[in-house]
């Protein structure tokens, strides 16, 4: 039995198809991230699970029971809103226990739970403040506390960290993840930040225009992106996507003789992650270094081959003499091939014809 199961869920508003035939099932106790660019239907999906939005088609099951037409309160789940949705006239204590009061939990039990939760999220000192008297991070904690005090096994979060600064965001990320594991909650977490998704998720469901583009563990999305769309979203900086053309001995980059991979080139795109490319003096793709972006632990160097820019991650600090010519090389198992027209993955790139003669190894 799955904690949450979506079966062909669709949401349409007159002209817009916000969510289009989405199906997935979430294991109890897992942390699932809905990732995707703005407007791809993440919030709508989450709101349909919560029951705040009616589905146009499809079924929503929670703990095995069909909840498609049940009101939100009957679904036994909590939600953290992007804007926190704290009641401005109630103090922190009243905000947290709002739901317990609605459900008439008796006051001894209520106070005990409040004490436990307030300590858990570090709010014990602030219970008498109003939301307006709190910092963004503290408000975030109140929203979180209100969600967990209900002791619902499922918690939905809609970009809960988007209003925080980078440092606080990192701290809260760790806290939420730790809390989820400690309490064994099932969390569906919406974000458009791939770093957040990669670092927190047991599993990422990547949405594009209301459809699931890829569904898998973070390292699966990283190492086997199903399309150029996934490849360009996961990783910082994301995968290089290089247009290739037909050459005499295999695919080449327009204007550069060097064979980058075996097989046909036209109609395909080569994907290589910046961290898998090495700058070497000997063999490889000739390129000119044109810029560098120093990040501290490493440097992102921009190299130009033909008309295409290729990002390379180099450890440490690397100065670039403009126009300095180098050779770029990469292990052949880290080169990916995509169909240029559909963007779908074809497989790992074929090795250059000279090296191996075997055919393309499609893995999907």
């Amino acid at each position: 039995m799955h904690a949450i199961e979506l079966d062909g869920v669709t949401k349409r508003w007159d002209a817009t198809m916000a969510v289009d035939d989405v199906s997935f099932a979430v294991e109890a106790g897992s942390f699932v991230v809905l990732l995707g660019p703005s407007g791809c239907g993440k919030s709508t999906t989450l709101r349909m699970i919560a029951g705040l939005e009616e589905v146009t088609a499809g079924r929503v099951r929670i703990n095995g029971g069909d909840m498609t037409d049940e009101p939100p309160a009957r679904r036994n789940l909590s939600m953290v809103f992007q804007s926190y949705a704290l009641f401005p006239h109630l103090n922190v204590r009243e905000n947290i226990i709002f739901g317990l009061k609605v459900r008439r939990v008796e006051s001894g039990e209520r106070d005990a739970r409040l004490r436990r939760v307030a300590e858990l999220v570090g709010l014990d000192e602030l219970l008498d403040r109003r939301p307006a008297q709190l910092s963004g991070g503290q408000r975030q904690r109140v929203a979180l506390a209100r969600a967990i005090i209900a002791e619902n096994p499922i918690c939905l979060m809609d970009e809960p960290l988007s209003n925080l600064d980078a440092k606080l965001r990192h701290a809260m990320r760790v806290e939420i993840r730790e809390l989820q594991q400690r309490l064994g909650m099932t969390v569906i977490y919406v974000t458009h930040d791939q770093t957040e998704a990669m670092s927190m998720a047991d599993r990422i469901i990547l949405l594009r225009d209301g459809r699931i583009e890829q569904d898998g563990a973070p390292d699966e999305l990283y190492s086997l992106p199903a399309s150029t769309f996934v490849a360009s979203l996961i990783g910082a900086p994301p995968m290089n996507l290089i247009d290739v053309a037909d050459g005499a001995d295999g695919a080449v980059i327009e204007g550069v003789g060097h064979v980058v991979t075996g097989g046909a080139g036209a109609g395909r795109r080569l994907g290589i992650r910046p961290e898998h490319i090495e700058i070497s003096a000997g063999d490889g793709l000739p390129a000119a270094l044109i810029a560098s972006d120093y990040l501290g632990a490493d440097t992102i160097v921009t190299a130009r081959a033909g008309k295409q820019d290729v990002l390379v991650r180099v450890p440490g600090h690397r100065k670039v003499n403009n126009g300095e010519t180098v050779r770029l090389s990469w292990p052949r198992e880290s080169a990916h091939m995509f169909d240029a027209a559909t963007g779908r993955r074809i497989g790992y790139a074929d090795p250059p014809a000279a090296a191996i003669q075997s055919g393309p190894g499609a893995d999907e």
Partner: protein
Amino acid sequence: MRQVYGWLLLTPAAILLIAFTHYPTVATLWHSFFSQGTAMRPAAYVGLENYLYMLDDEIFWKVVRNNALYAAGTIPASIAIALLMAVWVNGKLPLRGLARMAYFTPTILPMIAVANIWLFFYTPEIGLLDQFMRLFGLPSHNWLGDPDTVLWCIVVLAIWKEAGFFMIFFLAALQSLPPELEEAGRLEGAGRWYYFRRVTFPLLMPTTLFVLINATINSFKLVDQLFILTKGGPDNASSLLLYYIYEVAFSFLDEAYAATLTVALLATLAIIAIGQFFIMDKRIHYR
């Protein structure tokens, strides 16, 4: 130099305010300490004599009592109805725009026109109200001619006229509440009434205060309907303070006493407004 500019910019507004608000107020206060002058006898300073006369004036007390009843009848009812209508038309409702407009219509009609409409309702025998009563076999009644019912007729009319206006303020305030709050409430299982009582109503407090002050002032200010419907009668049973002031000044031509009554009205309004502000202020500031 900049100061000169500042003052120049202020001047037009200041002139209007002084000429039409501050000066008349002070002049009224001044007049209330003088006797009514005639051709033979110029006005003379009489100190508090006008005020002592007022305290002995039976009609004054009757009018004050009427006005208190009128305020007590119109203010809570019009606010409650306004709030109810606002919550109602704020929801998902077919023909919502039409409903909003219908509720707002009484507000844009001039009071004189409204009074004429209601005159037709209240007319004995042929009026709408009497025709309605006849359906239930009840006898005809002269609603506006009976001292026991006339004031309540005026009250009902005022509620009908004001509720739509106040609804607009409540509606604006309701629309400015973030929808996530309601969603959060729904997730926690809060029913509509519970949510209204614990969240919506407290969050509407600033608007309620604003509306309350306006309603209070209106209950002293809005007397146009008396000119059409009752002229304050019968036997002053429907006369209100401001209408009485009008009568004293322009029918009895006693400007000095009218000034005295006006000072009493202004003082009452000021005290009520300040009182409401301070009492309510404590309870509505959550930011």
